[in-house]
């Protein structure tokens, strides 16, 4: 995506943060300076930076959703995903680089939710860049202490018979939640199933959508 930002809404429906209609900030100056120096010194190149930004723009939660849809409809693949999520990604043709991935399966009795209290670790290769709230102080500090209240704010109410399992992504692993497959989806194709799986369902702050139901707000 080139830098001809329109000042309206983006394709994802969120406002663009303005670049060009506010005064140049100190930190923007620093970014430009570091970039130019790194290019001059041959550490990287303008083309490499542009390619990196382009790859970032192309990434969203689609790969994660495809992974979930296949796990729902292919028992062998599901077993592989739970045993060795990296191998399962490779089988889907997803390059997750050096990322060490663990899949967490929601069941009738356990609901998983992921947070990184130390920074903002996130499986970018499968879900795209993390949303602002995932990186916020409020989400990071509250999710480990009062996950039920946090989930309720996201519209997820769980019964007292369900154990919530919070995963603090503290070191080298990244986590993806495999949400429960909704009722009434027996005849759906894999792409139709994937369309039910939003980003938040794979963080654990949402559930998979029920076919025909309105998508959750936000």
């Amino acid at each position: 995506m080139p830098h001809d930002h329109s000042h309206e809404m983006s394709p994802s429906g969120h406002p663009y943060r303005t670049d060009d209609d506010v005064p140049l900030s100190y930190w923007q100056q620093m970014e430009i300076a570091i970039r130019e120096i790194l290019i001059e010194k041959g550490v990287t190149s303008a083309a490499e930076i542009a390619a990196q930004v382009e790859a970032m723009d192309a990434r969203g939660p689609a790969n994660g959703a495809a992974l979930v849809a296949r796990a729902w409809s292919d028992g062998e693949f599901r077993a592989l995903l739970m045993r060795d999520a990296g191998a399962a990604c490779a089988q889907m043709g997803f390059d997750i680089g050096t990322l060490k991935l663990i899949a967490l399966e929601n069941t009738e009795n356990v609901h998983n939710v992921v947070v990184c209290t130390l920074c903002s670790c996130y499986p970018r290769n499968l879900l795209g860049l993390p949303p602002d709230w995932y990186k916020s102080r409020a989400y990071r500090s509250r999710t480990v202490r009062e996950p039920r209240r946090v989930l309720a704010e996201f519209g997820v109410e769980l019964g007292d018979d369900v154990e919530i399992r919070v995963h603090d992504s503290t070191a080298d692993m990244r986590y993806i939640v495999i949400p429960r497959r909704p009722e009434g989806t027996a005849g759906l194709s894999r792409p139709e199933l994937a369309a039910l799986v939003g980003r938040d369902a794979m963080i654990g702050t949402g559930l998979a959508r029920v076919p025909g139901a309105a998508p959750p707000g936000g």
Partner: protein
Amino acid sequence: MSEPADGAPLAPGTTVRVATMMPPGHVRTPVYLRGRRGVVERRLGPFPLPEELAYHRPGRPHDLYRVRFTMAEIWGAAAERPRDTLEAEIYAHWLRPEPTDAA
């Protein structure tokens, strides 16, 4: 604190307690888990130690574990629902095995 990585690997199900030390600088053990007792969920294998990598040092391999805690153990009476659980990745030298019957 026991020495890192010189003992046998901790088997899943082993009860462990997280070290209470509070050194300054970069470590990957959350403060809210220090001194808490949990159970090894799985061994993740050796990873270059972030405590060294953070200071531009080579990062010798250290064993990393996923450890499961109950919310009751972490937050005591303030737990939102005591039986809910939390898992985190913790390096071996921050863990000390405890008798299982204490859990």
